[in-house]
């Protein structure tokens, strides 16, 4: 659907330290277009942190996150891209700053707790669109009305966003992300504080966003949800990437002891 893409994304030796504690250690994986990637793991495994690093909200302590150059035709590998040695600082900094500048406008993120501005639901969408989409008010309005309809929020458009129920706010957060037509959508436990009904609505919206061509990268604690939504699973444990599998293989035949224990509910930390 996109003529140019920031995917695939190569993550190499990604790490994140805070005050001498290593929270993310040496993650290496890639993200490819099309599939829905779910990041699983017990509390403290570094799932949310990984999403924030990928989205550029936090600068990595080490390693690189290499998004494809969206200004080049898709699938065009970039052999000239520096394979920066670990101890070589300047290219790494260059990668980090590039990551902040270019790909973020092709990405969106939905957080566990929706953060709404103190304005109407529609004005929240207008705000996000005005930040990212240039010109053409009418086009932005059409886009806004379209996502409101897609997320079942048309009736609530003129209500103050903060007075919506938590489920409605999360749908609005998804609508806001969707309005930006991201190539990659990060979701950090988007249904953690929702009841089953609202969870189902949110899942349906996530599926619709995926169907419209957006790569989904999501964390969850809900194994049933992971099974319903995932194409592939990335399993983290104590900041390490322990296992990466297709969804079916992960749930039927986990390769690592940690993942097997996690699926049985026996992995406590």
């Amino acid at each position, binding site marked *: 659907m996109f003529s140019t893409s920031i995917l695939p994304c190569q993550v190499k030796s990604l790490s994140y330290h805070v005050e001498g504690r290593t929270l993310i250690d040496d993650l290496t994986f890639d993200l490819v277009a099309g599939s829905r990637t779910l990041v699983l793991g017990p509390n403290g495994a570094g799932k949310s942190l990984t999403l924030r690093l990928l989205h550029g909200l936090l600068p990595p302590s080490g390693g690189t996150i290499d998004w494809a150059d969206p200004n080049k035709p898709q699938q065009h590998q970039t052999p000239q891209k520096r394979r920066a040695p670990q101890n070589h600082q300047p290219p790494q900094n260059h990668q980090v700053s590039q990551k902040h500048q270019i790909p973020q406008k092709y990405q969106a*993120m939905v957080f566990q707790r929706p953060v*709404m*501005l103190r304005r109407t639901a529609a004005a929240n969408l207008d705000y996000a669109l005005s930040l*990212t989409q240039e010109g053409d008010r009418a086009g932005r309005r059409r886009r806004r009305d379209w996502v409101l309809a897609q997320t079942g929020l048309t009736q609530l458009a003129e209500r103050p*966003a903060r007075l919506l129920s938590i489920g409605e706010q999360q749908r609005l957060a998804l609508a*806001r992300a969707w309005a930006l037509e991201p190539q990659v959508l990060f979701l950090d436990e988007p249904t953690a504080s929702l009841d089953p009904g609202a969870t189902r609505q949110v899942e349906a919206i996530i599926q619709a966003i995926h169907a419209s061509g957006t790569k989904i990268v999501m964390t969850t604690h809900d194994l049933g949800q992971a099974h319903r939504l995932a194409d592939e699973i990335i399993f983290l444990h104590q900041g390490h990437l322990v296992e990466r599998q297709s969804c079916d293989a992960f749930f039927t035949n986990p390769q690592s002891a940690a993942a097997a224990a996690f699926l049985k509910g026996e992995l406590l930390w």
Partner: protein
Amino acid sequence: MQNELTVSSTRLAIMNDIGQAFLTAFKLIAGWDRDLAEIIGLSLQVSLIALAVAAAIGLPLGAAVALLRFPGRRALAVLLSALMGLPPVVVGLIVYLMLSRAGPLGVLGLLFTPTAMIIAQCLLITPIIAALTRQIVLDLWSDYREQLTSLGCGPARAIPTLLWDARTALVTVILAGFGRATAEVGAVMIVGGNIDHVTRVMTTAIALETSRGDLTLALALGVVLMALSLTINGAAFLCRDWADRGQGRLAS
């Protein structure tokens, strides 16, 4: 024995005076005395203009100190907080020195004009508005930072966003500034000079009339000042309450 009698009768006389003075004061207010109206009008004019200028500077300044990273940011934050407690007479003195004939801005001929009073009040309340705004915006930013950053909104672009989203809390900040401006007497006395029909405002008039022993006008002005303060704060309270119900509480 006789002493005690004298004291209590004097006290009785003063109490009577006060009662009498209140009565006359209300008559003055009810009859919309011209002098009284003029003084109230000038007070409002000076303080409202000072407030507008201070808000135009203080709100963005406070937000910028909260959000932007620049050298001296922390020092500026400390300075703003410290300046909140600036003694009005000191501000008056500084403005007086600047505007006096021999001062650097003497050629403007602003001393003993309402403009000088506006400048003095502005200097007094801009730090208050900026420092309080900084704190409010900082709190809100901790709430919004990830979401706004994700949307591609950097700190500079976030300044108008956060000022608008903190609007109900900022109304209280503006009112604090207005209260300070209307209530202070030292600065406007020094730079305005309390000249009848020119620079006489409520507080300076109260000070003058009290020292002259004319309690009637002083009390009338005092009553108006109190009523003004109550009305404005009451309105702000209602406004905030209404806004909270309309948009969701700031703390939520």
